[in-house]
């Protein structure tokens, strides 16, 4: 496991940050984060509520300016080559960034054209995406009338219409039913198979464990762990052994157990809330 702050700044990485910091007044939301995501990785970015996940992803996608530090995407400096970077990435932000008064098809063609695709290509890809996402059966429905799951699928379709090399997803599975989640996962796995890099935040650790090859954990604004799942697992086991600590399970540690051990979130409910029965 790579410890926080030790990740080398590497211009060949898909995503690399150097001492990335963001302050809101006196509050340091993200502090000296050094991330490194290699091309083709399915990367999970985890942390408890308020840890700095969304702030980090906003900085990585240009929605928020860092207070200090550097971001490099596919070897491009985000600050100096911002337009070139944006052409290479797709984003599903926290609020989905949809335009409610367009139909799904209009929204997709609009997004495609904003990324510089010609009209015919936009229309063709939009048709394919709507069909793949099972959104094509009600072409006249406005986005504002879509269900939450439909909106998530549309947001993902919009994020990939230009064929990005890196995809940033902020909580893509939040509030999504199993069927929609299946469609989303299928799309993401297809992208990974074709060499794209995916950076996602999620609270659903089971999904992250199943999908992601590499994980980073942020806690109170600081990166506390980064590496492959095996590296993280080995790190926790080694640390527990060194401190003569008993691990919660005797078998292979789950990501949830690694996460709780890393952020110190374990709590025994047995001694408390006795009235709950």
């Amino acid at each position, binding site marked *: 496991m790579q410890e926080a702050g030790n990740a080398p700044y590497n211009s060949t990485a898909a995503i690399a940050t150097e001492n990335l910091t963001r302050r809101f007044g006196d509050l340091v939301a993200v502090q000296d984060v050094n991330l490194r995501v290699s091309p083709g990785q399915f990367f999970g970015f985890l942390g408890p509520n308020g840890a700095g996940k969304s702030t980090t992803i906003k900085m990585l996608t*240009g929605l928020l300016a860092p207070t200090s530090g550097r971001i490099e995407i596919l070897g491009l400096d985000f600050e100096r080559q911002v337009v070139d970077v944006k052409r290479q990435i797709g984003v599903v932000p926290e609020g989905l960034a949809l335009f409610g008064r367009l139909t799904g098809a209009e929204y997709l063609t*609009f997004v495609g054209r904003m990324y510089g695709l010609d009209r015919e290509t*936009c*229309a063709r890809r939009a048709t394919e995406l709507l069909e793949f996402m099972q959104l094509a059966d009600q072409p006249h429905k406005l986005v504002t009338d879509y*269900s939450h799951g439909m909106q998530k699928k549309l947001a993902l379709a919009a994020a990939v219409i230009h064929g990005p090399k890196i995809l940033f997803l902020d909580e893509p599975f939040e509030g999504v039913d199993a069927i929609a989640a299946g469609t989303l996962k299928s799309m993401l796995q297809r992208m990974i198979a074709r060499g794209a890099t995916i950076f996602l935040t999620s609270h659903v650790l089971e999904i992250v464990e199943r999908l992601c090859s590499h994980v980073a954990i942020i806690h109170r604004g600081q990166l506390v762990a980064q590496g492959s799942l095996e590296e993280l697992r080995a790190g926790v086991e080694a640390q527990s052994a060194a401190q003569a600590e008993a691990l919660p399970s005797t078998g292979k540690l789950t990501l949830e157990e690694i996460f709780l051990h890393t952020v110190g979130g374990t709590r025994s409910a047995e001694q408390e809330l006795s009235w709950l029965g």
Partner: protein
Amino acid sequence: MARLTSQSRGQLAAIAQVRWHILTHSLRTTKGALELFSRIVIGIVITAGGLGGAVLLGVVASYFVSKGKPEALALLLWPVFVFWQLFPVMATALSETMDSSHLLRFPLNYRVYMLVRLVYGALDPATVLGTAWLLGITLGVGWARPGVLFLWTTLVLIFFAAVNVLLTQMVFAWIERWLAQRRTREIFAVLFFLAMISLQLVGPMLSRYGDRSNATLHKISHVASPLQAILPPGVAAAAIASAADGRYVLAFAFLAGLLLYAAAVLRVLGVRLRAQYRGENLSEVARDARPLQGYAGVKPGWSVPGLSNPVAAVFEKELRYLGRSGPMLLTFVTPIIMLVVFGVRGRSGGFLDNSPDLALPIGSAYALLLLTNLIYNTFGADGGGVQFFLASPASFRSVVLGKNLAHMAVLAAEVVVLGVGVSLLFRPPSLLAVATTVAGLLFAAPLNLAAGNLLSLYSPKKIEVATFGRQRASQLTVLASFILQILIFGVGALTIFAARHYASPWLAVILFLALAAISFTIYGLVLTRIDPLAQRRREILTTELCK
């Protein structure tokens, strides 16, 4: 209503407590403190209005009863009734209402839920004022005829107040129902907007048809008189008048009529509240299931010659947005409606009949003024979509340019329609009128766009296009817009004055074109600085628009 259980009483106390906490916590911010201050000011105004109105109504009621005309009390009860019912509906457009459906997740029984709705719903200025005015009428009657009639009037007006409270609640409950869905909300917004326009037209119509108004009023009163007698204010007045004349059986019959009204209103209100209590799904998701008739894939976006892909895409998106918002569309047709109204010729001839060449410039200026609603908060309707603009590789300049072009296309279309309207209603505008209008717009529009682009970044405010009447821009934007309009109209007036002074009407066109060159330069300068500005303001944009 049966006695409340201790659990129900505890729930009511908890709701009262949580509302108190909400009030005290709101004072932590300056905005909250200012809100309380404005409420206190409004409270003082309401108290003054309530006391003043009560005294006035009391004196008039006393006069009617002492002169043996108690049936004329209907003339006092009707304004109270109309105010009581209309004021809360108008206030809905200006403020958020309490959503009691949040309470449904708690184990409240229906009786407590209904009580909460009635109690908190009744705590509004209309109820306070209406009650004060009815009290004034009661005391006025008591002053003229103390004794049995005073007691009877008190009883009748208590029932009348109850009918008013229940009717207000019923209207509110159903309006909430309509506002819950986008389509019904938009229909409601259109009706509200038309009502507002109608009110503006009362003055011009009266001035045009003033000489006929007496006969019309007689006709209306002939029809309305029996109708008003069977509605609650008429019934309440008849109950008091019958008692004053000693016809107690009839008086009781009218009182029973009021009770029937209360029961009927309660029943209709109950239908709504029961539906809410049971839990209703007002989602439109499942309803729109139009089949795939002839669906042959996605059509390409609009091709707009001369515009780059992103600018054309934003242009198309803006026009689609405008076309799908009923209230927005009505904003644009208002100048045309006003022109039609003023164009209906009366016998005396109006202002525009005497100076028809002013119709096009005035109409166009009005159209531009209405368009500033959009221009000065151009990202307001995009809401969270602004994140897309920030994350996409298209420059913000392209986005802003696309929006500006869409707004100018709307203005141009509106000026053309106004021109056709002026030709049909008055006479074709002269070449000078057309040239002055176009030159004036070329001066005023780029300045408004430049200021609007800056204010849209500096002071954005999220707009929900389906709602109406709510503040659509920040206070800063309203103030800045106001100052700029004064400047533009001042410069415009000076230009016209100079042309008249030198007896050269075309001088105004030349001066406006010279000013337009300056306006375009300013617009261009602002546009070239939009990208770095948007980068600096992105946090404010996302914070304000993604709420």
